[in-house]
């Protein structure tokens, strides 16, 4: 689940639960997990802590006897990378094993870690999603993949998961349009250091490119990117940028809506007005 979804965007958690329930997927809650840790500032701030915290989270899943389905791009990257380091770096593994043993835990690398996009595409399948649709999303949308979605450990095909995301968006009934800048970073990491540069150099070119397409909303699979898009577009006026804001919808919200969830079910109170209006208009 991560931190940002349950604490900032609980509506995405609601959507995730709804989507998995509608698809007949039985989820086990990972009790006692912590931040993955977050890869942009925390993961880099202290690698020794980062790998130990990741290993503890992985050991919780292993103890529960369940593979891990991750809802957040950042968490996914952190956990997958930690798992790879623990498999291949004996010195790090030995050190982490000692720390884990001291707190009564161990991690043996027996679980699979999947991004929810991989899980929905490979384990559930787009056919089952299409069969579950109650209100196909008859709208034109654009994808924002998020940089961490390009992370691959088993192959060099960095567009494997983005392609899966596109298939899932289309399975909801939505019409996918491309702006040409889908792969450009949203600016979230830069915003930690310079908010204005992040908005002007990353977000604005993306929104300008979107404005030349018929896209009515942007679909995300990363809560940090979604947050950056919503708050960044909210800052356009302050920065003297006269561009309309695009609704920002998480892929799980899009699927939940197409499975019959109502706007009120998704707790959109704290979201960008454009997002609320888009979801409500879709229902009317």
């Amino acid at each position, binding site marked *: *689940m991560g*931190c*940002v979804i*349950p*604490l*900032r965007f*609980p*509506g995405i*958690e*609601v959507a995730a639960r709804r989507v998995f329930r509608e698809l007949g997927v039985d989820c086990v*809650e*990972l*009790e*006692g*997990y*912590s*931040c993955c*840790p*977050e890869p942009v*500032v*925390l993961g880099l*701030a*202290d690698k*020794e*802590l980062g790998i*130990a*915290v990741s290993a*503890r989270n992985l050991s919780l899943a292993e103890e529960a006897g369940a593979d891990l389905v991750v809802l957040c791009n950042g968490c996914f990257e952190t956990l997958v990378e930690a798992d790879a380091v623990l498999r291949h770096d004996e010195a790090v593994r030995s050190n982490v094993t000692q*720390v*884990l043993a*001291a*707190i*009564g*835990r161990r991690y043996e690398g027996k679980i699979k870690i999947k991004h929810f996009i991989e899980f929905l595409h490979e384990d559930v399948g787009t056919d089952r999603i299409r069969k579950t649709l109650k209100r196909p999303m008859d709208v034109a949308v654009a994808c924002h993949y998020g940089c961490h979605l390009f992370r691959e450990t088993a192959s060099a095909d960095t567009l494997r998961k983005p392609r899966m995301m596109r298939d899932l968006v289309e399975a909801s009934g939505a019409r996918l349009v491309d702006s040409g800048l889908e792969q450009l970073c949203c600016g979230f990491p830069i915003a*930690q*250091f310079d908010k204005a540069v992040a908005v002007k150099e990353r977000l604005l070119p993306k929104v300008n490119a979107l404005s030349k397409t018929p896209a009515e909303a942007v679909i995300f699979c990363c809560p940090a990117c979604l947050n950056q898009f919503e708050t960044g577009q909210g800052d356009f006026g302050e920065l003297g940028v006269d561009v309309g804001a695009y609704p920002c919808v998480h892929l799980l919200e899009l699927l939940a809506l197409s499975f019959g969830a109502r706007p009120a079910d998704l*707790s959109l*109170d*704290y979201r960008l007005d454009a997002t609320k209006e888009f979801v409500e208009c879709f229902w009317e």
Partner: protein
Amino acid sequence: MTMAAETIVRLLGQNVPQDRFRCAPDGERQVAVELGAEHVKAAVRGLLHGENARFVTLAAVDKGEDIELLYTLVVGGILVTLRTAIAKEVSQTETIVDVLPAAELAEKEVSELFGIEFAGHPRQANLILPDGWPADKKPLRKPLMGNVIPQARLTVENLLRDAASVRVSPSSMSRREKAGLPKRPAMASAKEESMKEFIDLVIRTGFDKRAGYDWEKRKLRYK
């Protein structure tokens, strides 16, 4: 352990409990000792029982969060450095001038340049700085700062308080309730034993010390 280190451990052990200092050889006739500031005077007393013991110097290093003090003595031809750290928030330690008068000028110099007060030091007048120099200006002292970059500080504080990168705040709990979810997600902070385990893990990695985290105040020692 070298013979030199064994000699120093024996001398220190007369006055300081064995588990209160860490002694490491730093060459054939050189020994480094780490200890808390409260044991420095007793350690010096112990070393003075050694053969031909004499004071060499006292150096200070601004480490950002602490001022590190390095007391160097020669004992029986062995160069010994007592290394201790004074938290900047405290900036005070006991003088050793009463047991080692030769340290008087060195302590005074450190006091004026780094702002460490040596309690009980006999000299009041400035040694290095001109008369009338402002008492709050310490030429070699940097502001209190630590390893965590400003952009990561809030996230680090959230992590060590709630095991989450985002704060588990009343507003986040209220948002969850409104969404029909349990007030707290199933994270470590929702369960006392999970949170204890998480904190134990953090301490065992040494991150809290590297980051300069104050567990009592539940925040970093610097802004």
